[in-house]
């Protein structure tokens, strides 16, 4: 299996732009960018991503709630998920893992190495 399609959920347009560049141009992945949890839930099934990348703190539905809802979609039940967040407390990390997140990428991230980070987490999670 190859990592090709990433469902990316982030409300901040600046971060969206730079992450899109990092993942599309540097990483060569196909992205579906969603600005809210609702949008991700609407687009998730059709896009059928190999990886879900979510911001934690978003207005409205936050990252963890979004992931919990995405997990109810049958084909996304086991899809590798990664949170991105500016603050990681050990207790939070535990909670994210329980929700089925493979790992957390801290913000701010380095746009030149984001794709590589994502790939490494995905490979580890998919036993590659």
């Amino acid at each position, binding site marked *: 299996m190859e990592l090709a399609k990433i469902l990316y959920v982030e409300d901040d347009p*600046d971060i969206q732009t730079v992450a899109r*560049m990092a993942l599309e141009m540097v990483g060569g992945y196909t992205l579906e960018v969603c600005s809210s949890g609702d949008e991700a839930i609407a687009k998730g099934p059709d896009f059928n991503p190999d990886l879900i990348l979510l911001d934690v703190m978003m207005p409205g539905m936050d990252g963890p709630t979004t992931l919990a809802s995405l997990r109810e979609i049958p084909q996304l039940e086991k899809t590798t998920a990664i949170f991105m967040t500016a603050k990681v407390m050990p207790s939070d990390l535990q909670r994210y893992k329980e929700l089925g997140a493979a790992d957390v990428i801290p*913000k701010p991230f380095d746009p030149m190495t984001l794709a590589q980070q994502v790939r490494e987490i995905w490979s580890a999670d998919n036993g590659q």
Partner: protein
Amino acid sequence: MANNNLTVEEKMAALRSAYAQQLEGKIAEISDHVAAMLGASDEKAIAETVLAVRALIHKLAGSGATFGFKDVSMVAREMEDACNKSIEENKYNSEIGVYLNSRLDDLRKSSVHPDIRMEKPRSHENGDIEQGSIEDRTIRKVIVLEGDKKIQSQIVNELEHFGFLAVGVSHPNDLAEAINKSKPFALISDIVFDGDSESALKLISDMHGAGNLDCPIIIHSEIDDMHHRLGAVRAGAKNYLIKPVDMADMVNVLDLVTSDGDSDPFRVLVIDDDESLSHHTELVLQGAGMTTRALNDPMEVIDALNDFAPELILLDLYMPDCEGHEVAAIIRQQEAFDAIPIVFLSGELDVEKQLSAMELGGDDFLTKPIKPKHLITAVRIRASRFRELRSLMVKDSMTGLYNHTTTKQMIENEIERAKRLNHSIAMAALDIDHFKNVNDTYGHAVGDKVIKSLARLMRQRLRGADIIGRMGGEEFAAILSGATIEEAENVFNQIRQAFSEIVFHTDTKDFSVTLSCGIAEFPAFDSISSLSDAADKALYEAKHGGRNRVILAR
């Protein structure tokens, strides 16, 4: 979009600079909330502002370093921690506001990233200076579809003198391949191939219809009849030129059909003592594509006028040190700005007071709060009228270059600025060799064409921010800010070479002309008179040394 061709580094640099430009606004927004926090009277009001600040500062903490602003992330993180502590402990007193306020300056300082600051284009009378090397212009590829090899190579050569990258194609069958290699900027095409005057037009029409030929098309043919002209229009051609075509005309047509209607953004100076209000006005206007500058201290207005060269001024009526109508009167006393539109923006509702403000030099009165759409329209209409008017006043009607008076004025401004910023200026004086012979032999119409060609060539080869003036007759001047004399020598030698290779066609004879050029450098010559005299003297030497050469003043 052109962006697709950018490398990751270039795109990252662009994103970084866009982010940098927004940072100030984001920090101002946080600062507004902190101010509200300090002014809040009860715990509930403080709690609301703390939450608002936390939401904004959280974003900064999470994004700053991604865009190269490590310190922004660091300071924002500390401010976020303080907000979180306050929220967790449910403690909303003046302490949090005082702390956040004390960190705002750190935040502002951390947002001024030295690398980014250098990347920001500096402001200029003509709009922003173009980045890149002095001879760097966007390469524009023009495909020349022409069966006659001799004509083809002639067009290709001459287009290259005008700065286009011309590619010759000899048969319509090869057109698709040439287009696939890289998207052309324009297509110039004959219509008769292998004795057939229909197939080429049909092919072009099909390609154009299918979206495979998405650029202006110019037909260039010996046939001049309604049938073929109609065919050309139906094939999507923007112009139909009859052979033989003078290259200067061809280039004019190319310029016309490829101009996308984009013009420089309007430049608006916003004068308001309230930083957050001026900032808001700026954001609205920037959102409409305008370039703005805010001035919060009206006492600095004269510097701002000279430095920013606005096309419209939005002025607050009531300010602490100096009232709006007084500022308007001062602006009107500056000769260069006595016609600039001044629009008052104020909460004043009393019509009498509005009128008296306008008597002192204002052109219009807008009442705050104003809807963004209304503000944008009011500003755009006035600025655009001013620009048209000024263009009549400052430009030479034949060439579109600056006229003598304006050029002199601009040289002076450039020298002043170069002194302040401590950079060099190269000034060139140019003159077409034996121009009187051209006029006498071929007539004034041809002479005008020669002058226009040189004007066109200079505009093509110099940077957008360089100042090019027609000083009279066949004399020109150019000011290259930030350029050394050696860089200028290089560019003007290219212009000289290219100009000498342009062939002008007349009924009787084809001919070419040359030019001579003298260049002097600031600060070696450090006043307007010594600089222009030195350039003129070098030009004189070039003339006497045999013409068709560039001489440097030492």
